[in-house]
Every structure is written in C-alpha cells, then in structure tokens.
C-alpha cells in the first residue's frame, strides 16, 4: 500500500541526509572553544548575520529542514541581496524534490561562482564558530594603543575577517568589540606590485573618508583609504596605491572572500557600523595573513620588553652619551635621507653643542607588523628641550629585533 508515498518519504530522508553530510563536511561542528566562556566582563557583539547562518546550518544538520527554510527566508527578508542565503534556500527546497549531491546543488552553474559562495559559507561559519579567540586573546599586533586612539582594526585575510578592538584605557588592554566578514584581493595577500590583485599586509591607518556619492555605487556606503605603501613598504620596494576599506554595490550584500583588486571590502551595513569608530588619520588598520593571538600574559611581556627598550633609548639620548644612544640603531638603519653613518655623524655634531637635553614621549603607540620580520611600528609625540633648541614633533620609528635586541631601523616624522 501507498508505495509511492513511502518511496517519496524515503527519498526525502535520503536527500536530507545527503545535504546534512555535505554541510557537516563543509563546516565541522566542533567549535574549539565555546563562545561565552571566560570572564563575564567580556561584552560580545552578536550583530551581523553569522549567528542566523549558523542556526540555519544547525537546523539542517538536525534534519529540521522546515525550520531551516523559514530561518533562511527570514534572513533573506533582512538581507535580500545576500546571495549565499539564496543558495542555501535553493538547496533546502531542492532537497524536497530530489536527493542532493553537494552543497550548492545547482546544475550547469559556473563552477567558480559556486566555489565563491561555498568559500564564503565556510569563511563565515568558521569565523563564527571560532570567534572566541577574538575575545579571549589579544592580537599580537596591538602592543600598545595611545589614549587618543579609541579603536583599532585588525584584518585576517585567510579567515576573511575584520576584528574591531576598543582601546580600554582602564585595563590597558584592547577589548574586542565586533568582527565582520570581509573580502580581500583576488590573488590573496602580501601585495608587492601595482595591479597584482593582492591585499597588502602590514601596519596602516585610515587616511581619509570618501563619500559614497563621490566614489560611486560599486564601493557602497563609503570608502576609507589606508596609507599603503607605508614607509616600510616603500623601503621594500613595494608599490601600488588606492587600497581602501569600502562597501559593496547595492545589489550585492557581500562578495566572495577573494574578490577585490586589493581592497578590504565589507558589507554596507558592517562598513557603516565600523565607520562610526574610525578616526581619520589615527585608527590603525593592521592587515595580516593570519592573526597571531597572544594570551594576556604573553602580550604584557612583549609590550613591557619593547617599552623598556624605548625608555632606554630615550634616557640614553638625554644622557648625551652618543655611543650609548647610537647602540639603539640597527646597522641597516636608514632615515628618509640618511644611512646610519651619516645619521651618526650628524648626531655627534649636534650633541657636541648640548649642555643638557630633556626628552618627553607621549601618546606612544606600538603596533607589530604581521610580516615575517620582528618589526614594530612605534609612533609618539616627542617634546625635545635643550639648552639651545626646543622642538615638538610627531615621530615614527620602526623597531626590529636583531640578535634578541630591539633596534631602530627607520625613523622619521609621522
């Protein structure tokens, strides 16, 4: 009796199973750390659509396709141009009429477009399931933020994720605020050449804000250029320009993980939320291939060691013992117009005319470069006073670790 009805039910079950398997493969449901663990003081922003996306996949894995479908439809109501959700919706619907063989079971679709959406799904879900790192650990790069910098941005290109940290001046520790899905260069990170379709990695900051009207619909709700190539990039011979943080076209909620010519692209809603916290000329944007996370203790140690080196440099300068002072400079040191020899010669001349020197450093920031060199970008306001000259300036130094000691490899006005 009711043979075909039973067959149909079996087919449906089979379809669900296939789909679930595909998804399990796609995103192992074993978040290494459960969110919400740890101190109750951690404020976590659950904004954005990953929580909903994650629930949808959970429902699918539990074979509750009806729930999954209504959640997906709810998500699409909120974000009608979110293509990944359309793909999931298609799968859930199709699973009801035929067995699925893969996630994104579209026939005759361009494989690259499908791969893009699958990559986006993986990136979003992985980041969401492992997001606790952002709360429990500190990105190694945020060594020290100055009091006037309210926020810092750290980008992980491999994870297709941007993390926003607040400068918690009370605890001295960067406090996680939010994280967002991002797209980066079609050909990945580590930009070196104009037109290489890569996103630069390094320590940058937001240099300006371009209005959406001026830049056009493709860039969405705004654009924030960063200072690539920075002093270090130029010194390494890297070129190119026009690396921005920007939004998406109006018909596209988000782009695939690898989609831009080098820019960092956020959804318009996310960009708008982020923009509120960006200080032009100030907010650091550190772009990494893969963020290194430190425990609070390790982070404190690194920070203390470098602070100590900087303080020694400062006091050695005040001491007028020029050899002790020059010890802090790498043999590869270069300023914008001098190498170490020329620099040393000039310093010795100046030093000869000094009876006393007083140096005050304030608003000091230390951001570690994510590249393979142990390099830290140090920026501060310098108040220089001496018997014959007073001067205030904003200075930037690149400190590098050579043979276990921190040395200055670049110095210039910031």
């Amino acid at each position: 009796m009711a043979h075909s009805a039973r067959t149909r039910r079996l087919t449906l079950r089979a379809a669900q199973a296939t789909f679930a398997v595909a998804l399990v493969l796609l995103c192992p449901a074993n978040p290494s750390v459960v969110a919400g663990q740890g101190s109750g003081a951690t404020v976590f922003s659950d904004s954005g659509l990953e929580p909903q996306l994650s629930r949808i996949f959970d429902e699918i894995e539990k074979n509750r396709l009806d729930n999954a479908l209504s959640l997906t439809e709810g998500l699409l109501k909120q974000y009608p141009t979110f293509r990944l959700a359309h793909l999931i919706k298609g799968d859930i619907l199709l699973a009801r009429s035929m067995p699925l063989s893969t996630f994104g079971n579209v026939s005759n679709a361009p494989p690259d477009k499908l791969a893009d959406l699958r990559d986006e799904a993986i990136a979003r879900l992985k980041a969401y399931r492992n997001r606790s790192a952002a709360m429990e650990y500190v990105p190694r790069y945020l060594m020290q933020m100055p009091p006037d910098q309210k926020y810092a941005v750290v980008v992980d290109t491999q994870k297709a994720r941007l993390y926003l940290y607040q400068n918690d001046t009370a605890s001295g520790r960067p406090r996680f605020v939010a994280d967002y899905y991002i797209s980066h260069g079609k050909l990945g990170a580590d930009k070196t050449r104009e037109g290489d379709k890569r996103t630069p990695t390094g320590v940058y900051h937001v240099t300006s804000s371009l209005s959406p009207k001026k830049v056009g619909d493709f860039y969405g709700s705004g654009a924030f250029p960063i200072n690539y190539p920075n002093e270090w990039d130029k010194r390494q011979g890297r070129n190119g320009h026009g690396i921005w943080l920007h939004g998406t076209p109006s018909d596209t909620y988000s782009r695939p993980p690898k989609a831009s010519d080098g820019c960092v692209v956020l959804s318009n809603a996310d960009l708008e939320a982020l923009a509120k916290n960006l200080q032009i000329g100030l907010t650091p944007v550190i772009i990494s291939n893969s963020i290194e996370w430190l425990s609070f203790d390790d982070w404190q140690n690194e920070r203390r060691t470098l602070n100590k080196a900087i303080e020694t440099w400062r006091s050695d300068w005040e001491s007028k013992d020029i050899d002790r002072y020059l010890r802090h400079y790498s043999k590869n040191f270069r300023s914008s117009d001098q190498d170490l020899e020329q620099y040393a010669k000039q310093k010795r001349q100046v030093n000869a005319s000094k009876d006393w020197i007083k140096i005050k450093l304030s608003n000091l920031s230390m951001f570690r470069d994510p590249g393979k060199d142990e390099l830290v970008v140090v920026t501060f306001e310098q108040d220089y006073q001496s018997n014959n000259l007073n001067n205030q300036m904003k200075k930037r130094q690149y400190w590098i670790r050579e043979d276990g000691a921190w040395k200055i490899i670049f110095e210039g006005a910031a």
Partner: protein
Amino acid sequence: MHSLPETPSLARVSAILVGLLLSASVTFANAQTLPDVQRLMKQGQMPQALEKADAYIATKPKDAQGRFLKGLILTEMGRTADAIAVFTKLTEDFPELPEPYNNLAVLYAQQKQYDKARTALEMAIRTHPSYSIAHENLGDVYAKLASQAYDKALQLDSSNRATQTKLSMIKELISTSAKPGTSGKAGSGISSETKATTSPVAAQEPKPAEKNPEPAATKAPETKVAEAKAPEPKATETKAPPEAKAPETKTPEPKAVEKPDVAPAVEAEVTKALQGWANAWSRKDVKAYLSYYASDFRTPDGMPRKAWEAERAKRIDKPGKLQVEVSDIKVSVADDKATVKFRQQYTSSTLKSSASKTVVFVKSGGKWLIQQERVG
C-alpha cells in the same frame, strides 16, 4: 509531452469528470446537469459548458462539485484569474478538500507565482498528508523555487536552464476517505490506463475504501451512483492510487479513453493519424497533408473545398523552414468519431505559435480523416 516548458499541462483537464457522491446533496437535477457539463467540456465546448455550470451553480450555490467544474472550465478557457477566484473560494468554503488547493497551485505556478503555489500545495498536504499528486506538484514547485533561489545566488539568468514545470491539475473532486461518508466504492467500470496496466489489482480492490488508511485509495474509483447517471464514457485520473502502481512506474500521461478494451487501439490509430498529418504539414507535402481531410470536411466559413485547398497549398508551400509538432494529445472516441485535443507548436521562419487545437476525426474507409478542425 510537454511542448511548452513554462506551461503546466493544464490540457490534461479534458478528461471526463467523475461524479461525486457528496452525501445527500445529489439530486435528480444535478445528476442530469453535471454530466451534461462534463460532456460539453469533453467536446471542448467550453462556453456552453460554462453556461450550464453557471445555471447549475445558481440552483445549488453551495455545491462544491459544480463550482469545481466551473474552475476547470475557466482554466480551459484560459481565464486564469477567474479560475483562481473560483478555486480560492472553494478552498475557503471547503478547507478540507485538497483538490481545489492543488489546482490553485497549478494556476499560480503557471503564472510563476511559485511561493503562492507552494503555500497552496502545503495546505493540500496538510489536509491530506498522503496526497500523492500534491506531493509531486510540490516537488516540482520546490525545484522551481530552488532554481529561482540559485539564480539569485549566482546572478544567473536561468531561462535556458529552467526545469520543466509539470504540475498536474486535478480533474476530479473526490473527497478522500479521511472524511466519513464521502468515500467512493471501487466501481466495476474503472476505465483508465491504470486498469489497463494493473487491472488485476484494481479489479480486486476491496470495495469499502474507508478501511483503507490511505486516502489516495479512493481517488480513482468512482461511485456507482455517478456512473449510473453519467451516460458518457468515463475516464479516470491517471494519477492512480499508489498501491495500484508498480513502485517504479512513472505516472503515465493522462488520457481519456472510451471503453477500456478497445480504447487503446483506437486511440493509437487516431494519434498516429494526427501525427501523420502534422508530419505531412512539416514536410510541406501538400498532397499528403490534404489527404488527411475527409470529403465532408467543414471548411472555415463554409468556403468551397477547392478554394480552401488552394489556400492551404499556398500557405504551406512557402519558402523557409516549417515545423509543426503536436503534444498533450487527448483522444476521446464516440462511435466512428474521435475528438482529439492537443497542443500545436507551429514554427516557421516568420511565426512561432503554440495553440490548443481540437480536431474531429471520422473513420472512413478504414482511415481516420479530419472532419473538423478548430482552435481551442
């Protein structure tokens, strides 16, 4: 059989409707009228059928069967909006009946309103979880919706990738056994392909269907009462009860047949004649084409046969490619007359058209020849 990918095969509706025994609502009057309506529908005389149906509904405004037929007639006439209104009202007045939901869904799907179609089908299934046609239709609608979703996901134009929609209109309004007192009995006169293929099962089907937990069991069988009143030959929905089919068999194309024992052969002959006619036309073989017409063929506007033939020859023998295809063929036979309804897909270098057509064949000298030909 689906020549038009975007058009659900509503032409399937042409089969005779089986009477419905709705408890005490059967009166002598409706027993007379509804079969009349059905016969007119079968003959393709939709305006007349509609007139009769309206008259019937005027006397029995609450009668589901009459209104259901009206919905089918309007569908056949291409008055989709009106048909939707009729079926919608039926779902409101008889929410326990799955058939109006199903047909509503077919019409929505035809208009590419797949979300509405889905809702309607889900309602049909909610009332009758094992309603196999609604399940199949819903599967198609889901596939269509999935395709739309994929297009949005990938920013594609799916027009050349579209899966065919092949939703089935329900032609019978039969309350399922889920509702006490409305179940039919398996009649002796089951005349359908179901019987032709699986007659031993169907014939031995136990009569009281209420005992059967599957509502679908009462779908194909018709009541004896209706049978007695309906003078016309009958055909049942070919979406047969699931248990009457081999599990793997795909539901065959619905066809209306005269008498189970002779119908398939006659039908095949007529279908063959129709295809021969279309082929001759496609080949631009005027002589062969004209040979398919009976001597008493009713020319349009009664024009002289010679003039008509000359006109046809001129039209057909134009340069450029020509293709005439027939699909969705439904044959109904009465004595030496066979009425064939089908969809005609006409493609020439200048024109592409698709129309439903009706051709009446007569048997003459062992050959089936065309006596009437009309659009609609």
